[in-house]
Each structure stands twice: as C-alpha cells, then as structure tokens.
C-alpha cells in the first residue's frame, strides 16, 4: 500500500462535513414527505372519533329516518356508486381511445394542437362550471332532466381529461423500440397497439381510472344541479333502487345537506357519513395501489 492511497480514504473534516450535509438533506426531504401522513391521520382520527356513536353496518344499510335526523345512508351510498360507475363507464372508453389516438396516431398539426389544448383546458375548468354546463347541456338541452344520466355525464366530462392524461402516460411508458420492431415486420399501427402497446400499458391505464373514482365520488357541485336530491324514499338495503331517469341521493350531496339544511341532526350522523365516504375512497385507492403493485411485479421487460 503506497502512502498516497492511505491519504485518499481518510476522513478529513471536509469529508465529515459533506456526510453531515448529506444526512441532513436526506432527513429534511424524508421529513417533508412524512408530514403528508399527519394531516391524513388527523382527519381520519377526528372523523372516526366524532362519528363513533353512529358507526355500524346498520348505519350503512339503513335509510334516513325522522326527516334525516337519524337513520343511515344507504340510498346515498348506492347513489354514489351508481354515479361513479356510470360516469366512468362513459369517460373511461372515450378517454382511452382518445389517448391512443393522441399518443399513437396524431402528428403535429393544427388539428391535434387544438385537441391537446382542449384537453388541458378542460382539466382546469372549476367543478361549479362543470355543474352549470351539465345543467344547460344535459338537463335542459338534451332533455334528460334532473336525473342520474345528467349527473353521470357531467361527472364523465369532469374526469375525462385526467383519464386521457394518465392513459397517455401509460402508453408512453411502453418503449418505442417495441413499436418499431412490430412496424418492421409489416404490422399496421393498430395491430401493434393491440398486440404490444395496450396490453403492456393496461396497469397504468387501470390505475388512472381507479384514481378518478375518488374524484367522482367526492364532488358535490356537478351533481347538485343535475341529478342529486335532498331525499329520496328507498327501500332499506335494496341494490337497484334507482332507474336511470330518476334522481338519486349521493354521499357528497348528503353530507352537504346534513351539515347545512337539516336542523337538530344527531351530531355523529354527518361525521359518520363522511367516514363512509372517505372509507370507500381509501378502500378503492388501496385496491388501485395493490393492482399496480401486482401488475408491476408481472412486468414483461
């Protein structure tokens, strides 16, 4: 061992200072990320604590009673499921197909630039404006009236741009070399997309759609004028209580109603409603993460 290599690996004060800075930086960044957990835990803790007297399976299955001052949230829960399911059933196919066009087919011309601009701007529209649009377009102009259809379509337009964006990202994560290898053997663009691109982008696409569930479930304004109502008489525990042209109750709307329109409501009821809403959303998001982890582990390259 020569003397010079000894000097190379000794811990000078400069080395020690760099190591301290490195550790400090790591803890600052980790701390910032860790802070994220605190608001979430506080919210969940506060809600559960206030909702405790009312939380039970019965609360979920029961209908509101005594002028909504007591009882459960079943019609609102089912209503939210209807709205989320129908709105994603419309926006997911349209969003995926649009994203496939934008990522796989479109060239840089004025037409496609306008489309891209439209998608970006649609994503930035405030939800109350979506609500007014839904009112004008679906409730009045299309003559659907206040109904589940109108509310679902309004929510679909709201979730569409984000589904397009996340699908495009999933498609772009498939390496271009796969597409080129397919084109070189005479496959058409569609054959390539069907055989290689879509199957390998599916995990990202599904995750993007599932994450929109929480958005569609939580928005109040877009459904307030277009299809959600204060109260609807529904049989306790029934699975298909609404027709498509009916109006429905929804958890987000129900929460707003209980908090502002119903005097003398039992204190734990609105909080329990919030717990049901948040719990459902957390459950769905966890499923999305689980799905993503499962599909990642089966990654084909």
């Amino acid at each position: 061992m020569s003397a010079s290599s000894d000097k190379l690996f000794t811990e000078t004060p400069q080395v020690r200072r760099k190591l301290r800075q490195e550790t400090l930086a790591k803890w600052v960044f980790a701390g910032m990320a860790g802070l994220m957990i605190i608001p979430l835990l506080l919210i969940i803790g506060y809600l559960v604590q206030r909702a405790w007297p009312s939380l039970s399976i019965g609360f979920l299955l029961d209908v509101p009673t005594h002028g909504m001052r007591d009882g459960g949230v079943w019609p609102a829960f089912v209503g939210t499921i209807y709205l989320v399911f129908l709105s994603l059933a419309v926006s997911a196919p349209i969003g995926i197909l649009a994203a496939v066009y934008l990522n796989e087919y479109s060239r840089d011309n004025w037409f496609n630039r306008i489309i891209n601009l439209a998608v970006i701007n649609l994503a930035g529209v405030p939800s109350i404006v979506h609500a007014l649009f839904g009112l004008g377009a679906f409730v009045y102009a299309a003559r659907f009236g206040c109904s589940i259809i109108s509310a679902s379509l309004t929510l679909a337009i709201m979730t569409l741009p984000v589904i397009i964006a996340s699908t495009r990202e999933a498609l772009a994560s498939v390496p271009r070399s796969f597409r080129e290898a397919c084109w070189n053997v005479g496959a058409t663009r569609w054959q390539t997309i069907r055989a290689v691109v879509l199957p390998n982008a599916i995990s990202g696409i599904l995750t993007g759609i599932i994450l929109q569930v929480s958005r569609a479930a939580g928005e109040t304004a877009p459904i307030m004028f277009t299809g959600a109502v204060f109260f609807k008489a529904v049989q306790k525990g029934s699975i298909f209580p609404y027709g498509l042209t009916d109006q429905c109750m929804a958890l987000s709307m129900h929460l707003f109603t209980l908090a502002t329109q119903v005097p003398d409501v039992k204190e734990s009821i609105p909080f329990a409603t919030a717990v049901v809403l948040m719990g459902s959303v957390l459950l769905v998001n966890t499923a999305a993460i689980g799905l993503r982890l499962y599909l990642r582990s089966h990654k084909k390259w």
Partner: protein
Amino acid sequence: MTPDPQIEIRDLRLAYGHKEVIHGISFEIFRHEIFGVIGPAQSGKTSLLRCINRTIDFSPDARVSGTIRVDGEDVRQTRDVHGLRRRIGMVAPLPVGLPMSIYDNVAFAPRCAGLKRKSDLDDMVERCLRQAALWDEVKDRLDSLGTKLSGGQQQRLTIARALSHQPDILCLDEFSIAIDPVTTMRIEDVLKELRQEMTIILVTNLTQQARRLADRTLFLWNGEVVELDSSEVIFSDHPGNPKTYDYVNGIFG
C-alpha cells in the same frame, strides 16, 4: 451470376426538417448478392434502409424525394406499405425481444399477415428459429418471454422474426454492435446460407465484417456515394477513391 438489379435507387434525397442527410444518391443492388454499406456515423446508412422499407414514414419531419424501385415497383408510390415491409426483413442494431413468448415473437408477423392455423404457425416458428440458429437453445421453452433472453439470443430472435414473413430482401443495420463475437460469427454463417434465398443488405461500421461477407460494398460518407465496387477492390490497396483507402484503414472515421 449475371447482375439482375432487384433494387434501383435514383437520385434519392432525404431531409430531416431543413437538414439534408442524403444528397441525391443513385445505385443498384443485385438479386441474391450480399451488398455491404460502410461509412462513419451520421452518413445516412440507417436512413437509407428506412427509406427502402418505408419506415421513414414514422419520422414526421422526414422528406424524401427520388425513386426507389424494388422489383420494378416504386416503393414510394405503393399502396400496400405493409406488404412491402413484409417483403423486406429488417434487423435493428439493438436487439429487441417483444414482450411476449418466444413462440409469439416469431408468429407475430405471420399472424398479422393472416396465417392462423396452428400447425402452419408451428412449422413456421420452428423453421425460422432453426434458420436463425436459435432453435436448439429455446426449443424447450418457447413459452418463456422473449425479453428475458440474452442480447445475442434476442438478436437471433429478431432475425427469426425478420425471416418469419419470408422476405426477398434482408436488411441488417449494424446487427453485431451489441452482441458478443461468438454469436456474431454464428449469425454471419447464417447470412452466408441465406444469400441463396434472398438479397442481403448489410449496413455495418465494422469494415472487416463487410470484407468477410459482402460481394459488393458501397462506401457512403455524409450522405453521398464515395465509391461502389466489388469488395475485392474496395478493400484492396488501390480502391477507386483514396478516401476509401483512408477509411478502411482507419485513418479517419
């Protein structure tokens, strides 16, 4: 072997945006020959191949002019681009195994072309993998993923894929740069056998590889033809152009 031009290129010009990369080149490639293309980087060799099989269409800012005739048919006017690409096999520099089973990798092109019967596909897959000198190594695991093979195996898989649509012309774009010398030698033997069935265009920056394999060699430099002659002349001590001698002997490029 009487020279029978299979590919005729007349005054081909290619520009990416405002930058012209191929400046009006003209030459012919004869049937069943191994046609070498040598030249330093950025001389237009890959772009030339992409013009021939029309994958240049996938570069939005590429503008092509001039004629490229394959078997008398103008490639740029043809309506059946996918049929054209099936007549031309292409092997890229970096090995690519598609993210599907080895069987599906080789069966992909025939299926796209309409071949559906399992027995036909089985025969095709075995024949192509044998021709690409890969059959013995993978015959017991045709269901495993193509992406999990080694680099040399993936490159042979790419060749099997290129052969699966029974091309008349096989284009190899620097096929050996990412694989080991032993596999390279095996593939070179494969090419020597394949020339009986098809014309082979071998783009390479390994001048020794062109010397070993090519009948005639084109020296392309900065998008222009410097010299085109039989390999004996190009790699001799007195090629037609002194630049050729300098390049082959490593004095530049």
